[in-house]
């Protein structure tokens, strides 16, 4: 009896040291049936190493990919392939990196039936994750974040659904769908315009097209909401101007937000660096609202 108790203690100490020294988080990839789009959408879930043993409920960070990307991006395109696993272990959160299609832009298209990614991400996916895992089933424990098109998605969805998310983050986000403000070749801008036209129809206001779908057009709602915001952009990024514009608008209307400019371009080494700061920000939000001990 005594011996087995000692063995138990030893195992405990061993487990403790194992926990602190290894990153063995688990990745599930779920096939989620989207009712709104009538198709299956994939979403990898990265669970912290102690998920099975802890019995506790975890905050969830939804991490969105960029244009031309997929659900695989965040797990395959970082130089440090274990980065997300390190982050979930370090900050004791669950990460979900759902598919948003290469050009879906995370809104509900009034024209294209199988491009309803606002409904998918903010309703179907959240519901599925909260049913399947031990999550904090409340806005206090739910955060959304992404890069480029996904940065737009995070700000757009969090601003439209402040009851769902306590914080939102954008890295090199497409903060304005007006391609005239992007530093890109004309043919690329044209192809994006075509995509927006396909999804949303012709712009109502040609001077500032699709502003109602852009973060820069939602700043009054951001002010009214209590969603903590962070966004960053590289100096040499094609999206630097729309990000500076959003920062200016939020300063002008007095909406608290963290805004960072740093070296870098619209590419993975930048996002690999930026995501660590975004998670530190989210960690502080979760600590402050009591979702983490």
């Amino acid at each position, binding site marked *: 009896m005594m011996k087995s108790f000692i063995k138990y203690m030893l195992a405990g100490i061993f487990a403790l040291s194992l926990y602190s020294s290894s990153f063995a988080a688990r990745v599930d990839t779920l096939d989620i049936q989207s009712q709104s789009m009538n198709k299956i959408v994939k979403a990898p879930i990265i669970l912290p190493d102690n998920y099975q043993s802890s019995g506790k409920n975890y905050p969830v960070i939804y991490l969105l990919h960029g244009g031309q990307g997929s659900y695989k991006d965040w797990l395959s395109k970082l130089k440090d392939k274990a980065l997300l696993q390190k982050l979930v272990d370090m900050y004791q959160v669950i990460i979900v990196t759902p598919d948003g299609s290469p050009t879906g832009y995370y809104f509900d298209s009034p024209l294209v039936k199988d491009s309803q990614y606002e409904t998918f991400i903010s309703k179907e996916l959240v519901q599925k994750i909260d049913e399947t895992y031990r999550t904090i089933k409340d806005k206090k424990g739910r955060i959304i974040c992404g890069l480029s098109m996904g940065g737009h998605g995070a700000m757009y969805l969090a601003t439209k659904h402040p009851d769902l998310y306590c914080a939102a983050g954008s890295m090199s986000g497409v903060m304005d769908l007006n391609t005239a403000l992007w530093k890109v070749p004309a043919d690329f801008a044209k192809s994006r315009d075509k995509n927006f036209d396909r999804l949303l129809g012709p712009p109502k206001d040609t001077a500032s097209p699709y502003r109602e779908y852009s973060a820069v057009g939602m700043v009054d709602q951001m002010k009214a909401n209590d969603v903590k915001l962070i966004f960053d952009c590289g100096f040499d990024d094609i999206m630097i101007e729309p990000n500076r514009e959003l920062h200016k608008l939020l*300063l002008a209307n007095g909406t*608290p937000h963290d805004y960072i*400019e740093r070296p870098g371009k619209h590419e993975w080494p930048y996002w690999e660096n930026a995501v660590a*700061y975004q998670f530190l920000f989210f960690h502080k939000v979760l600590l402050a609202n009591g979702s983490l001990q």
Partner: protein
Amino acid sequence: MKKVLYFFAAATLFCNVTVYASKVDTINILSVAMNKAYKAAIVFPDAYAKSKANFPVLYLLHGGYGHFNDWLLKTPDKMLVRNLSDQYNIIIVMPEGETFSYYIDSPVDRSSQFETYITGEVIPYIDNNYRTVKSNKGRVITGLSMGGYGALYLSARRPGLFCAAGSMSGALDPNMSTWKLTPEMFNGLTKELVKIFGPETFDPDSYAPYSVVNLADQMKMNGLPLVMDIGVDDFLLEPNRELHRRLVYNHTPHDYSERPGGHTWDFWQNALPYQLLFFNKILKANGVSVQ
């Protein structure tokens, strides 16, 4: 058998309570230049005593009207600096900068020679007495307000000493025309600045050589990674924006953050962990961080 059990129980308990057990020492570091000893606080990570490794060092400077132990006493979370030391396995040295030295060698006050003190006396003392990484590869410097100025000023002038530098709410330009101050604050600060930098006389540019904002080209030449944080309600917002603009214009790599908040300890408590994350990435890349 019972004894063994107690031992394990004690060991388990010990494990739990010593997860964060950084140690704080207060020492005297003599300044030959000023013929005076000043106090400094040093935080050692828990791992320091348990290993034989050489540790990187962060020099963390206090602000105007402050002293060496501000960072330990004034943050809302009194464990902030100690926890960061443990989290990143870094020694954190908080030297004295007096209430208004500006960390320069004063041209008018021989008893205020803090550039020499920090760079020529404190750093050698620390390297001679502790297991540090004794090169710029393992040395970083930051501070708040006057200390943010000090960190950028000293690192810009002596880039061979550090591998990165930061500023939080830095008082980057002693020319106060761009500061948002009440007349009382302006008059109070003018009295202090004159004691250190000399009379401003009638020339608003007489402090120009001391302005960190004017060191943007030097910073570009140095190529030292820089990180700057400023609150959008801080009276020092404008000089920080001006340095950021100049560094963007001349293509000097730097991380620049504007966050909610004013010139307060809440802001600095929030900002410091981001700066540590920044420094840690560089120390890791330099191969000097202790795992």
